[in-house]
């Protein structure tokens, strides 16, 4: 079911463990701190406490408080200091506690980290990985549920990465930390503890039952800019990332549609070769994201597919997204692009 063709061959022989996404992220951070003394972790509550989602648990005890430490509640300061640390030669991995809180740090990301290499002609670089939980479905209300990825994909000089499984979270995070450009690493917090099929009123499934939770021990990386074909199919192509991969899988299986599901994994730079190959085969394309609709990353995907696969398309590209409202608390499942919204779009695409 999972294709991991880009993984080194030796990985197949590596011992594996079943991890949830938080454990996989913690493992990646641990490995990179061990391998590279320039890796430092900063953020609100990341030190002694280990982060509000426990992603940095145990790391301060292991690596000391000058390499993993709490910061003041100042996203501007967290990112700004990280830019300065990077200019010194460190490889900072700041955590922004929720993606919804990232905006005070936006100037430091957009005007500084993203453009430092360009404006200094390579004298200074910003090899920073900003980790941040994003997305809804946890009753977080409008300040703990947002998906602001499109704000970052719009910025020249930033890479944006979103994993959908523990296996990918570890390999992608290691690649992001090793990358010499600034990377926004959004972690879909709805699936920290288990994949989510979109049916919020049925019991959640743990990662342990999902093949994506089989995580090799030790170091491995998954190259940025490479999508993953989650499932091959002929009827239509689904382009998604993060939580929506699992929702799409469940809905399309339930509808009995032979869909090809592509987990983009990296939004910038995007793997259009994989996307084009698939859409040219299926002739139909469904774009799904949880973020608001207007000017969302789905608009970019839709335009790219239209530009590059127009003569293969049998139907207009469909976008399934969150609504253009703040994420409501009590009605969050009315906002969430769940099975009904996806199902309708699939029917339109297939002419049912």
């Amino acid at each position, binding site marked *: 079911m999972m294709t991991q063709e880009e993984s080194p061959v030796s990985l197949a022989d590596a011992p594996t463990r079943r991890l949830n996404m938080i454990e996989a992220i913690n493992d990646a951070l641990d490995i990179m701190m061990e391998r590279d003394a320039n890796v430092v972790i900063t953020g609100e509550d990341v030190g002694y406490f280990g982060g509000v989602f426990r992603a940095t648990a145990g790391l301060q005890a292991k690596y000391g408080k000058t390499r993993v430490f709490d910061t003041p509640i100042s996203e501007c300061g967290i990112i700004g200091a990280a830019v300065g640390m990077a200019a010194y030669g*460190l490889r900072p991995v700041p955590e922004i506690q929720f993606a919804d809180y990232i905006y005070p740090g936006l100037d430091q990301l957009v005007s500084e980290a993203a453009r430092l290499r360009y*404006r200094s002609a390579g004298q200074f670089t910003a090899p920073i990985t900003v980790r941040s939980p994003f997305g809804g479905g946890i009753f977080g209300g409008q300040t703990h549920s947002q998906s602001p990825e499109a704000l970052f994909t719009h910025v020249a000089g930033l890479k944006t990465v979103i994993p959908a499984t523990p296996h990918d979270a570890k390999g992608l995070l290691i690649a992001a930390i090793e990358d010499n450009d600034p990377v926004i690493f959004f972690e879909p917090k709805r699936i920290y503890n288990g994949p989510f099929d979109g049916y919020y009123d049925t019991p959640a499934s743990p990662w342990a039952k999902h093949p994506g939770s089989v995580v090799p021990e030790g170091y491995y990386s998954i190259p940025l800019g490479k999508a993953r074909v989650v499932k091959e199919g002929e009827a239509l192509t689904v382009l998604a990332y993060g939580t929506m991969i699992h929702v799409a899988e469940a809905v399309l299986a339930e509808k009995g549609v032979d869909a090809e599901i592509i987990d983009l994994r990296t939004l910038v730079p*995007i793997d259009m070769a994989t996307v084009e190959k698939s859409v040219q085969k299926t002739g139909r394309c469904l774009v799904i994201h949880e973020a608001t609709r207007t000017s969302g990353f789905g608009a970019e995907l839709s335009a790219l597919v239209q530009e590059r696969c127009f003569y293969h398309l049998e139907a207009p590209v469909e976008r399934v997204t969150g609504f253009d409202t703040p994420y409501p608390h009590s009605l969050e499942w009315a906002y969430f692009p769940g099975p009904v919204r996806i199902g309708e779009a699939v029917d339109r695409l297939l002419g049912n």
Partner: protein
Amino acid sequence: MAEEPRNPVRKRGNLPPLALHVPEPKHRPGDAVDYSDLVIPPAGAQPRPDESCAAEETYPLCTDLVRVLDDEGRAVGPWDPRLDAETLRRMLRTMALTRAFDDRMYRAQRQGKTSFYMKCTGEEAVAIAAAFALADDDMVFPSYRQQGILVARGYPLVEMINQIYSNRADRLKGRQLPIMYSAKDYGFFSISGNLTTQYPQAVGWAMASAIKGDTRIATSFIGEGSTAEGDFHAAMTFATVYNAPVVLNVVNNQWAISSFSGIAGAERTTFAARAIGYGMAGIRVDGNDALAVFAAVRWAADRARANKGPTLIEHFTYRAEGHSTSDDPSSYRSAQESVEWPLGDPIARLKNHLIALGEWSEEQQAEMDRAVAEEVKAASKEAEKSGILGHGLHHPFKTMFEDVFEELPWHLEEQAEQAIRERRVKWPDWKE
């Protein structure tokens, strides 16, 4: 029927109506200048605490004004850094060279050789005396008016002009607005243009230096207007929380383009006093007194290097020219302000000090002025061989798409091909 106002004014008994205060500078164009309310304490009267003192000991200095050079050109008081005459002459020459550079580059902009320029006239002592007080490998996170630091550190004038002209020799490949230098090998961080972003970055650099057990410290410069940015608060908080080895400078030159310092809060307190709320050491210094600037920055640098923490220094000075080539200061402030600035001109004051010491003369000054003008002229001619802005001698075209990322991703490769096609439409024979 008239609509009801959405937010009707509420009156309560005989309470007076609330009134908004919008600060207004004392002098506008055409006004006679009156500096009588400016408190300028005598030189030499300010105590100098030990560099390792508790931050609280510096608080009186936050509302005072550290001065060394008196009206007779003597260096007096405990802040006198007792520099030898040779160092003073080098400092004077660097200031004169910077002023000559500014004058020539300003004219070059007016002659159409570049798009933009910013002078530091009247503020030369701040950057240059600070550079003399720091170690050459201490990291500077500058704003756009510290060209004096590059000059002081011996960065080639030709390189500065190449950057200003965005020509084919520009080390920044013509990407940055003129004067937004970057010189990593001279410990000079890439200038942003977005204000105050360099402040938390300097603190981060200093934190990294401390994490690694280095001995280098960081320093940063912003204007008084930029203290209003949130980055200022973030930097001050991080610097004190982590006791970062950093010297944070506020260059209070009284004007932020056309907004006087009152718009940034100067009516209520000094900018150095911002340090008090954070528990940081603070010093307010006469920014036109090169010896006082040197002494204050050296004090703060020694303190930082001894792990005693950060210092905020307000350099009280005056921006003698416009903000940049894009504004005309006579349209918003009295021309007399600069002429009558009670703290004088930093170059004249250092010159007078050297003369008072018997180590300099007006003739030597005139000869030096001629020499630095020649030096700038020669550098300018040399740089012009590599082109001026808009005359085709820029960096190779393909470099436009480089350095967005370490490696060129497919979408930028496609866009580069498009850009090259566009050029060939305009110039069919064009090739790189």
